[in-house]
Structure formats: C-alpha cells, structure tokens
C-alpha cells in the first residue's frame, strides 16, 4: 500500500509548504533555510522579534519578494509565487500592518480599487454587505476612510481579502493599533474563518494573543526557525525567552513617592490645531506631573499623541504661553532650545527623520538635540571632539551596538537606534522628559533597557511623560495614567487601579472627558 511505485492519495498535503527558504539582503541573511507548513483550518503563529525575518518570510509567501533558494509548494505543487496578484489568484490573502488605503476615498471605492479583476466589481456592494454580516465586520460602504477609526480601517482590509475567498489568510501584526475590545472581535472573526477551513498565519510578538488564539507557533530568531511549539502549553516567559534567545528580566519596580510630589509640569487647557492633514486637534488638555513621577498617556495612534508631543517640545506653537508651565514658569511661548535650556528633553516617535537624521553620523545626531545642554558648540562652530565624546558616552552607557560615533544612524537596528536616542536625552540630565512610543518596534531586550532607563531617571527626581500604545508598558512603569482619544485626555488615575477593560473603553473614546475633570 505504501510502496513508492504506487502514487497513493496521501493525506491532504499542507496548504502551503516552505522548504529551505533562503533570502539574503546586502549585509544580512534575513531567512536562513526556513521550513514551514501551513494547514487548512488551523490558526498558526509566526513569532519573533523585530528583525528576526518574519516580514521577509511573509513577503515571500505573498509574492512581494522572491527567495534566493528553497521551494514553495502550494497545495502540494511546487509553485513560484511571482507577485501579489498571483498570490491572490492562488488564494492567499494578506492584511498588512500598515494599511494601503486612500484617505480621501470611501470604503467601497477603496475596496473596488484593490480588486485585480474589474469583473469583480459587479455586485460588489451586496457581496461586501454579505461578508460584513457573516463575519461580524460592520462597515458602512459610503463613509470616507479618513473619518474611520483604525479598527474600522483594518476591517476594510480584511473584507477586501475575504472578497477574494482566500484559502490562506496572512495577518501581519494586526492588533498593534486595536483596543482590547476590537482585538476580541477580530479573534472571533479569525476563529470563524478557521472553522470554515481557511488557514490563518498570524504574525505577532504579543504573547498573550498568541496563547489565546493559536494552536501552533513557529518561532524565528535571526532568520532561523528556532522552535515550534503549542503556545497554549508554554508560558509567556518561555516564549519570550525563545524569541530573544536569552533570559529576560522585567524592569525593576521603582520606589514610588509616598506623598504626591510638588508639580513640575503643569499643562492647563492646552488646545492646539494640528498642522498636518488628517491630524488631530488637541482639545483642552490638562495634566500635572510631579517630580519623580511617571505620567502615562495611552491611546490608539493618531489620537493627538504626535501633536501633544510637539506642543510640549515647542515644535508647534502652544497658543497661550501659560498653557504649559514648568517649575512655575510659563514656557508655552518658548522655542525648542529654550525649553531644553530649562531642563526639558524629548524623544519623538519617529526615529528616522525626526529623532535622528538617517544619513548623518551618531556624533552629528548626538549634537542634534544635545548641543544646548551639553555645550557642544563654541562661537558658532561645532566642537567636534566634544560631540564625538558625547556620542561615545551614549553608546557606551546605553549599550548601543552596531556602530560607533562615525556610523550613520540608518545603519543601526531599530532597537539600538532607539537606545541611542533615549540615551542621548537622558545623558543630558533632564528634569523633564517627554517620550512618545519609546519601545515601538523595538525588540524585547532593548525595550526593557529603555524602560529601565526611564524608571531610573524618574527615580532621580525628573518628571516623565510617557506616551505609549503599549498597555503593558504603561501599567508596568507609570504612576498615573490617562488615555487620549480624539485629542481629549481622560482624567488621570493611579495606574494600579485601572483595568484593561476600562482602558479599552477609554481608548475607544467612551467615558468621562477631561473637560468634566477640569470643571
């Protein structure tokens, strides 16, 4: 029966099988002989840190990249996936982490644009409605995309995929922008799809979700498969260690001030019009941060975090000078260097192009924000020796790997560059630090080092404002916490008293508004 001469109908071949996939980029081996099998009706996870090769691998599956070596079998047949259109014809759908939607068009227009075959547009609205109803993905086809929340935008992408009736659905970090409630809704949709026989590959580095959703996990590290396991049976700690390849310690809890410290930073009804298209205006934001306190601001990206950060740093005008007071002094009218001179330092969200200039060296990028407080210029000339020494100091003290003071910023990995940026600000010994998404897209090891540095700075008496999307981070290090939604800030509360559910509701814009609190 099992002789090689008899081509017996084997048990159904895997939906998609990768054998020995290799992909090289100049200077790195992104995928090193990767084997992976994906089956119909199963939800499988692909886990790994940033830079582990997850994105490269799924881009190969979706035909965006071509492997240098190895074989792809689609339903048992060797297949060369030429491009994404080909992948879609085969039955592979993908929802990317960053959406490709036109803000100015409606939901239906966006979906119609994404279809490969014009024939598919016939009866599109009724099919959209059918899929929306069937999978619990409510969508109003006539609304314009820029009015939609991130969760709704993601639904557009998912519906667009489902219209093509995929056999395999790839989800790349789908929950990084969702509230906990939206995550739960997404999961039930995915479970329903799997029950109907669709294979699902779920890419994430959030371990709780993997444990809740997936039956099987493949862990990548430095381009290789290092483990495959059942995530429901492993502890999160163990999974994280497999991802990092080392033991992990959480940042040390800090000694919290017993009595509330005198306020250092007072923001009083700050209202700012956003200077960017589809930005979020700030509406009457009020908060106070004491010496030694870490004040957390949670919320989904695009709810005014960038504007708040830039109004605090002085990059955009704050309106009234006394909307922002620092140690009793109205600083709302001061420019960025003047605020730095008073002791304020800032870590913006975008590492390249905002926090650093990508084609400049670390020494130059150190100078970029530290020239005021570290006196790196003399008589209008850059003091190169001091600038170099400062960069060396940051690199040494914050364990920045992969470059020296002469390396260009873009050559560093995301985590190392972020350690450099955070280190650059902390070594200026600020008495106020405002950080926006300090560990976004940063590997676990670097994230913990960064969080520890922020905690240590607060312990030394600085006031810290930590803007983050990562709820674990906020709950882990902050003293008080408020949520920003639609440019308004919820009344702050002690982080220890808040639950995930409450935070989720606030993130969706439900709950008491700061206007009530200010009254």
């Amino acid at each position, binding site marked *: 029966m099992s002789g090689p001469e008899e081509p017996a109908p084997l048990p159904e071949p895997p939906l998609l099988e990768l054998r020995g996939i290799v992909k090289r*980029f*100049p200077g790195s081996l992104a995928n090193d002989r990767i084997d992976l099998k994906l089956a119909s009706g199963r939800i499988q996870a692909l886990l790994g840190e940033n830079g582990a090769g997850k994105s490269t691998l799924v881009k190969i599956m979706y035909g965006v990249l*071509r492997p240098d070596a190895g074989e792809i079998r*689609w339903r048992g*047949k*060797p*297949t*060369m996936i*030429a*491009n994404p259109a*080909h992948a879609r*014809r*085969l039955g592979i759908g993908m929802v990317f982490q960053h959406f490709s939607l036109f803000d100015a068009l409606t939901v239906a227009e966006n979906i119609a644009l994404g279809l490969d075959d014009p024939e598919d547009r016939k009866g599109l609205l009724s099919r959209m409605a059918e899929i929306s109803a069937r999978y619990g993905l409510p969508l109003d086809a006539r609304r314009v995309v820029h009015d939609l929340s991130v969760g709704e935008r993601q639904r557009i992408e998912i519906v667009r995929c489902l219209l093509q009736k995929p056999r395999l659905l790839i989800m790349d970090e789908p929950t990084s922008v969702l509230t906990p409630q939206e995550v739960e809704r997404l999961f039930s949709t995915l479970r329903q799809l799997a029950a109907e026989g669709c294979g699902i590959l779920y890419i994430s580095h959030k371990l709780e979700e993997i444990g809740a959703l997936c039956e099987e996990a493949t862990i990548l590290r430095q381009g290789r498969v290092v483990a495959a396991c059942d995530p429901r049976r492993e502890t999160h700690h163990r999974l994280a260690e497999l991802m990092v390849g080392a033991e992990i310690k959480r940042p040390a809890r800090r000694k919290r001030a017993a009595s509330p410290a005198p306020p250092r930073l007072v923001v009083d009804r700050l209202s700012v019009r956003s200077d960017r298209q589809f930005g979020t205006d700030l509406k009457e934001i009020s908060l106070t941060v004491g010496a030694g306190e870490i004040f957390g601001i949670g919320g989904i990206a695009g709810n005014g975090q960038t504007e708040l950060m830039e109004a605090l*740093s*002085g*990059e955009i005008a704050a309106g009234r000078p006394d909307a922002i007071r620092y140690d009793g002094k109205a600083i709302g009218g001061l*420019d*960025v*260097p003047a605020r*730095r001179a008073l002791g304020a330092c*800032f870590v*913006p969200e*975008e590492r*390249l*192009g*905002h*926090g*650093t*200039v*990508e*084609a*400049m060296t670390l020494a*130059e990028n150190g*100078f*970029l*924000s530290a*020239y*005021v407080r570290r006196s790196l*210029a003399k008589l*209008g*000339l*850059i003091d*190169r020796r001091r600038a170099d020494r400062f960069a060396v100091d940051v690199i040494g003290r914050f364990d920045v790997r992969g470059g020296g003071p002469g390396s260009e910023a*873009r050559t560093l990995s995301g985590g190392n560059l972020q350690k450099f940026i955070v280190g650059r600000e902390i070594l200026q010994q600020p008495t106020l630090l405002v950080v926006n998404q300090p560990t976004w897209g940063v590997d676990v090891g670097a994230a913990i080092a960064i969080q520890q540095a922020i905690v240590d700075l607060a312990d030394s008496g600085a006031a810290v404002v930590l803007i983050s999307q990562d709820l674990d981070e906020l709950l882990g290090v902050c003293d008080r916490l408020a949520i920003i939604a639609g440019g308004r800030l919820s009344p702050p509360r002690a982080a220890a008293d808040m639950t995930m559910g409450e935070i989720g509701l606030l993130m969706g814009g439900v709950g008491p508004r700061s206007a009530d609190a200010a009254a």
Partner: protein
Amino acid sequence: MLRLRLEPRGARSAMWAAASPLLAVALTVVGAGAIFALLGRAPGEALYTFLIAPLLSPTGVPELFVKAAPLILIGVGLALGFRANVWNIGAEGQFSLGAVFGGGLALAYPDAPAIILFPAMMVAGVLGGMALAAIPAYLRTRFNANEILTSLMLSYVMQFALIYLVTGPLRDPQGYGFPQSALFSDSATAPILIEDTRVHLGVLFALLAAVGGWIVLERSVSGFALRVLGQAPRAARFAGFQEKRLVWLALLVSGGLSGLAGLFEVAGPIGQLLPKLSPGYGFTAIIVAFLGRLHPLGVVPAALVLGLSYLGGDAAQIDLGLPSAVTGIFQGVLLFFLLACDVLILYRVRIVRRGAAPSLKIPGAA
C-alpha cells in the same frame, strides 16, 4: 535577447556618488565628439580644439581661472542653499544687480582712492545680490511662494532692468549713444594678481569662498542646520533650527556671493556696465554645484570643467566656424549625463536575458 534592468541598491553608493561626475564628464566628451561629427567636423580634431588647445596658449590656464572664478563664487553659494533644499535659480539676476550696485558706486566716485573705493564696491556688490535674493526669501517665508519660480522670474526682470539702466541713467554721456556705461576708473578696477594675465582679485576671493563655504558647511552650527533642514525637516524642527531663518540665510548667502561675482566681473574683465554682463554664469553655476556634488570644494574642479566650455566655445567659433551655442550644448549634454549617471548611486544595472526573467514566468497560475 539581452536587456538592461535597474535594481535598487537599497542604500546610497558612496563610490558612485564620487564616480558619477567623472563618468558624466567622460560621456560628455564622447557625446560632444559625436555632435562634432554630425556637424561635419573631424571629431578628434574638434575635441582637441574645443578642450585642449585653449589651455595650451600662454594665457590659457590663467584665462580658465578667470572664467571659473564667477562660477566658483556663485556655485559655492548655490551648493549651500541646495543642501538645505532652498533652490535659488536666480543667481543670474543677483549677479547683475551686484554688478549694478558696485558699478554704480564706481561710476559715481571715479576719483576716490582705490583703497576705499574698491572695498566699498565689493560690499555694494554683495548687498546688491542679497537685495535681489531677499525678494524670493520674503515671498517664501511669508507666503510660502516657491523660490524656484520667484527667483527665476526675477532674473528676467533684472535682465530688462539692466538694459534700461545702461541705455538710460547709467549710459556713458560721451559714449556716442552706445548702450553702455563709462569705463571704470583705475581705482575702481579689480587689482590684477598675476602680471600679464587677467587673473584678478576675484579669483582669490573665489578660492577663499570655496574654503570658507566648506568650513561653514562642515564645521559651523549654521551649516549643520542647513544640512539637517535639507535631509530631514522634522529633525531640524526637533533640533530647534528655524526653517525661516535658514531659508533667509541660504538665499542671502547665495545672493551675496552671486552679487560679488557680478561685481568682480564688471570691475575685472569687462571694466564697464553692458546690457549683457554674463554669458549665463548664474545658470551654469547650477550645473557646477551639482557636478561638484554640492560640496564647496568640489565646486572648484567642476567650475574649471565648465569654465573650459566657455574658452572652448570661443575657440570653436574662431577655429572651427561653429556657432557659440556649442558651449550651451556642451553644458546641456553634461547635465544630462550627470543626472543619468546619478541613477547609479541608488540603482545598479543588471543585464537580464529576455524570457529568462523569473517575473515573466508564472507556473501554477492556471
């Protein structure tokens, strides 16, 4: 069948950033030879006449520096601005207004001692260039008007203003009605540095400007701010460098240097104000700045190459009977090849066999 395909390198190639201008110059020489051949001249001989013979005469090399001096002065200023994404395309007009300001002073006080008059003329020249560049700076910082258009259009305004001045208020009363000013007095003439040549003080200032520009760009906080603004405007804001201030700085510096170049041209080789003062130095200097990789020191060799095209143009007219447009053609071909070669900084060329390209084969797609 073979075909060429461009593939992104993923990073800038430092090697090609340096090699691209050299390759572009080489290709331009080949291209110029082909054009000469099409015009019925023996390409070898014509290239020799155009590019080499002008340097062999006793005054050849000094003359080259005389032609290159205004290109260097203007090119250095443009390079500083271009680094900051401030696109001053109106150097031709700023050159003329600098010449008018300085020349006006020379005509008003012909008998003043040189030690006072000439420095005053230089200052006036700088101020003249700055004055014209201030208009696009104001329009850009106040109304967000594109400085490419405003500065370019002002060049044409200045061209007609100059014609008006030399046919009207500044015309030489003893000049038999010719549209030109009186000749400048001796004390208003740029000192000659090397005897029996036309190498004047402006050549020295050009070289000083190149070194000074390099120090400003690489060492000073302002130069750093200009570079940051050009590469990452948000990072410039984060650093606290004010964009408006930097736009003013870039336009005033490039305008001032263009004005100084104009002053040296009228106080040196020309010696009076004419309806047309520049053979297009202000526009050629844009090519100079890019050929010199927007680096103040790189501008010097680039200006010598393009200065040679002016000398060669004269020679081609006299010895080959070709129109002086040859100079413009040479410069255009050079810019064309430079832009084409710069593609190699970000892309590499792959030779692929048609039909063997994997992207064209879609097995299993049926």
